C-alpha cells in the first residue's frame, strides 16, 4: 500500500522514502507533546525537535524496527484535535480521517503530555469515535510528577479503551511501545466508543461531549496536583515574560549567543583555514604534479575552485556547529516560547499574530523550513505575509559573511557587529511588515495571542547534539551541492577569455567572461560603494546560496595567484582592498552597505523553491522584487549617509 504524503523539507530532513507494504503507524498529538523526539528516538532519523509548539509542519516518514516487526512510522504535524484550521492541522485530519478507510494508518500512537493530559486525550476521544486502533504514549511524566500529578496507567488504559505506555523519548526510554504497537496491530480493531447522538452541526456540543469523556477517563485514573502552586518555571517567567525585563533578557540572550559564537569559533576557523590553504593545497598540487597535470585546467579548477571555495566555506563549520548548538539549547530548554510572548506586541504592530514569531525565528537558522513553518498559522493572509517577511530574517548562511567582514573591518568588535546586523534584520522585518500592512494588507488583523508555555526543562545532550548535527549536515549539504555547482560555473566563466592572447583555462581573472559579466552588473552597485567586480560576482553567486559568497571571493582572488592557496588573512586583505577602492575611501560605509544589502536580498534558490510551493509563482516573483528593492534602497541610504559621517 502506497500513500502520498508531502516530502519533508530539503533543509534538515531527508527525502521521504517509499515504504509501501509495511503496516503504518502514525505518531499524532498536540504541538510540543514530544512526537518528533519520539520519532527520532525510534527511527534514528533527525527531524527538527524543540520545546516549543509548531516544530513539525510536514510529515516525517521512516522505517521502524519494532522488535521483530518492521513498521512504517509517520510523524504527523501537531494537532490537538481533528478540527483545526491551519494547513498542518488540516493535513493531519486529511491523513487520519478524510482519506478512505484503507488508506488510513493501521495504528495511531497518540503522544500525550502527562502534565497536560486532558489536551492530549481529546484526540483519543475523537479517534475512538471510529474503529481505528489507538495506543497512547505518555510523555513528560517527570514534569507531571513535579507538579504532583499521579497517573494510574492501567486504569487510564481501561477508561480509554486503549493501551497506555509510559515513555521518555528525551532519555531514549521507549521500551514497551514496540510491544504495545505489535499487540495492537495483531488484535482486531476495537469497537468505537459510544457517543450520545448530537446534531451534526453542533460543534460545541460535540467538543463538550469529548471533553466530558476525557474528564471521566482522567477522573478515575489521575490524581491532579494543585495547579495554582508556583513552579520554578512560573518564577522564572515572571521576569522572562515581563514587559521590561522580558525584551531585555531576550536581547541579552541573543547577544550572548553571537558573542560566544564569534569568540570561541575564531581560533578554530583560523586553524582550518590554514589547513586548507597550506597542507591540503600543497597535497593536491603535488598530486597533480605527480601525474603531470600541474598547471592544467583541471588543476586550476580543483585548487582554485574546489579547495579554495569549498575549503574556505568548510572553515565555518565550527562556527555553525556552535551557533546551532546554542540555539538548540534555547529551543530544548523552552525559552523560545517565551520569545514569542515577548515579541507578540511587535508582531501585532505589523498585523501578524504572535505565532508568526515561530517561523521568523526558524528563519534565523534557515529560511527554507521557516517558509514551511508558516503553515502553523490558520489565516491565509498571515501565512502569505509571513512568507514574504521570512527572507528578511538573517539565515545562518549569511552569518559566515558577517563574521568574515566583521573580523576584517571591526576586529575588536566583531561579535557586537554581528549582533547589530541581527538587530537590523529584525528592524527590516518590522519595517517591511509595516510597509506591507499600510499598503497591500490594510485589512489584515492579528490573531489573538493564545500560546502554551511549556515548563522549562534541562536540555538533554543527545537532543541538542541531534538538532545541531542535523543543521550542520544541512549546511554541509549546501556546500557539497549547490556550492560545488556554483564553484564549477564560476570557474567555467573564469576560464573563458574575453580578450585575445589567452586560451580556455589560461586567462587572467580580470580578463575572463565572469569578470566581464560582473563588471557590467557592478555599475548598478557603484552608488552603493561596492561596484567592484569581485564583490559583484560574490553577490551574483550568492543569489544561488549565501554560502557561495565567500567561496566566490576565495575563488576569484585565488585565481589571481594560481601558484598558491589563499589563507583567510589573505582573503580578508584582498576583500578589504576592493572595498577601499570601490568606495573612494569610505570603506566602512561601503562595508555596512554591502552587509545590509546581503542581509535583505533574496536568500537562496532553495528559499525561492519553498516560497513557490507555499505561496505560488506570482507572489514568489513579488518577493524577489521586494527583497531586491528593499536591499538596494537600504544599502544606498547606508552608504550615501555613511560616507558623509
Amino acid at each position, binding site marked *: 500500500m502506497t500513500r502520498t504524503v508531502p516530502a519533508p523539507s530539503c533543509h534538515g530532513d531527508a527525502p521521504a522514502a517509499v515504504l509501501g507494504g509495511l503496516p503504518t503507524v502514525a505518531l499524532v498529538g498536540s504541538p510540543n507533546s514530544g512526537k518528533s523526539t519520539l520519532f527520532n528516538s525510534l527511527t534514528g532519523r533527525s527531524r527538527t525537535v524543540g520545546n516549543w509548539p509548531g516544530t513539525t509542519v510536514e510529515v516525517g516518514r521512516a522505517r521502524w524496527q519494532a522488535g521483530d516487526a518492521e513498521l512504517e512510522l509517520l510523524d504527523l504535524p501537531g494537532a490537538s484535535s481533528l478540527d483545526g484550521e491551519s494547513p498542518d492541522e488540516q493535513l493531519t485530519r486529511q491523513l487520519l480521517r478524510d482519506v478512505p478507510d484503507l488508506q488510513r494508518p493501521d495504528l495511531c500512537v497518540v503522544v500525550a503530555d502527562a502534565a*497536560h493530559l486532558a489536551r492530549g486525550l481529546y484526540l483519543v476521544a475523537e479517534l475512538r469515535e471510529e474503529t481505528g486502533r489507538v495506543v497512547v504514549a505518555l510523555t513528560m511524566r517527570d514534569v507531571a510528577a513535579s507538579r504532583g500529578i499521579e497517573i494510574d496507567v492501567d486504569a487510564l488504559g481501561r477508561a480509554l479503551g486503549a493501551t497506555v505506555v509510559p515513555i521518555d523519548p528525551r532519555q531514549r526510554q521507549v521500551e514497551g511501545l514496540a510491544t504495545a504497537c505489535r499487540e495492537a496491530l495483531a488484535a482486531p480493531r476495537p469497537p468505537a466508543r459510544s457517543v450520545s447522538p448530537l446534531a451534526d452541526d453542533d460543534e460545541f456540543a460535540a467538543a463538550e461531549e469529548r471533553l466530558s469523556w476525557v474528564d471521566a477517563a482522567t477522573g478515575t485514573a489521575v490524581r491532579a496536583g494543585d495547579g495554582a502552586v508556583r513552579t520554578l518555571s512560573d518564577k522564572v517567567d515572571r521576569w522572562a*515574560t515581563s514587559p521590561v525585563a522580558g525584551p531585555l533578557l531576550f536581547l541579552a540572550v541573543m547577544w550572548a549567543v553571537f558573542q560566544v559564537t564569534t569568540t570561541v569559533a575564531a581560533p578554530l576557523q583560523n586553524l582550518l583555514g590554514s589547513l586548507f590553504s597550506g597542507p591540503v593545497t600543497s597535497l593536491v598540487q603535488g598530486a597533480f604534479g605527480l601525474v603531470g597535470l600541474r598547471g592544467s585546467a583541471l588543476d586550476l579548477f580543483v585548487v582554485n575552485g574546489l579547495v579554495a571555495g569549498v575549503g574556505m566555506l568548510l572553515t565555518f563549520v565550527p562556527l555553525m556547529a556552535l551557533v546551532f548548538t546554542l540555539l538548540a539549547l534555547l529551543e530544548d530548554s523552552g525559552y523560545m516560547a517565551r520569545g514569542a*510572548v515577548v515579541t507578540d*506586541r511587535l508582531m501585532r504592530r505589523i498585523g501578524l499574530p*504572535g505565532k508568526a514569531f515561530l517561523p521568523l525565528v526558524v528563519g534565523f537558522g534557515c529560511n527554507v523550513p521557516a517558509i514551511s513553518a508558516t503553515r502553523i498559522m490558520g489565516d491565509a493572509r498571515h501565512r502569505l505575509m509571513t512568507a514574504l517577511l521570512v527572507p528578511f530574517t538573517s539565515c545562518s548562511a549569511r552569518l559566515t559573511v558577517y563574521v568574515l567582514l566583521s573580523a576584517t573591518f571591526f576586529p575588536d568588535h566583531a561579535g557586537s557587529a554581528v549582533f547589530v546586523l541581527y538587530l537590523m534584520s529584525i528592524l527590516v522585518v518590522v519595517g517591511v511588515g509595516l510597509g506591507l500592512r499600510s499598503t497591500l494588507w490594510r485589512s489584515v488583523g492579528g490573531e489573538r495571542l493564545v500560546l502554551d508555555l511549556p515548563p522549562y526543562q534541562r536540555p538533554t545532550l543527545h537532543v541538542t547534539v541531534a538538532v545541531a548535527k542535523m543543521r550542520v549536515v544541512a549546511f554541509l549539504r549546501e556546500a557539497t551541492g549547490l556550492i560545488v555547482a556554483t564553484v564549477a560555473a564560476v570557474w567555467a566563466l573564469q576560464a573563458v577569455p574575453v580578450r585575445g592572447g589567452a586560451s580556455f583555462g589560461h586567462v587572467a581573472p580580470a580578463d575572463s567572461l565572469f569578470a566581464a559579466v560582473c563588471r557590467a552588473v557592478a555599475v548598478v552597485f557603484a552608488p552603493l560603494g561596492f561596484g567592484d567586480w569581485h564583490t559583484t560576482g560574490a553577490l551574483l553567486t550568492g543569489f544561488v546560496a549565501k554560502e557561495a559568497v565567500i567561496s566566490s571571493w576565495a575563488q576569484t582572488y585565488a585565481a589571481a595567484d594560481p601558484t598558491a592557496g589563499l589563507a583567510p588573512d589573505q582573503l580578508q586583505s584582498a576583500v578589504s582592498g576592493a572595498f577601499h577602492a570601490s568606495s573612494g575611501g569610505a570603506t566602512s560605509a561601503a562595508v555596512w552597505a554591502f552587509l545590509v544589502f546581503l542581509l535583505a536580498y533574496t536568500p537562496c534558490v532553495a528559499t525561492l523553491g519553498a516560497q513557490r510551493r507555499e505561496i505560488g509563482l506570482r507572489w514568489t516573483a513579488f518577493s524577489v522584487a521586494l527583497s531586491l528593492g528593499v536591499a538596494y534602497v537600504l544599502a544606498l541610504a547606508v552608504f550615501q549617509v555613511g560616507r558623509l559621517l
Partner: protein
Amino acid sequence: MATTEGLQQAARGSRWRLLDGAGSGAERLRLAHSGVRKGAELTVLSRTGGGGGVVAVGTYRLALDRAGLGRLRVEPLG
C-alpha cells in the same frame, strides 16, 4: 458574588473562576483544549507587555494578550 468582564486589570496572583468561555469558534475550542472551560479556576501568574498575562489553568500555563484576557467572564475566588 460579583462577576468581572475580563482579566485585563487582574493583579498578579489573583484567582478567578471562569463563568463563560472566551471568544467563539476555533478560539473557544482552542482554549477549551487547554482547560479554559466554564468552571475552571484561573490564576494570573504574571503580566506581559501590552496588557497581556500568563495564566495558570490547572497545570497549563497560557500566555494571553490583553484582548484575550478581556474576553474571559470570571468571578473572583478567595
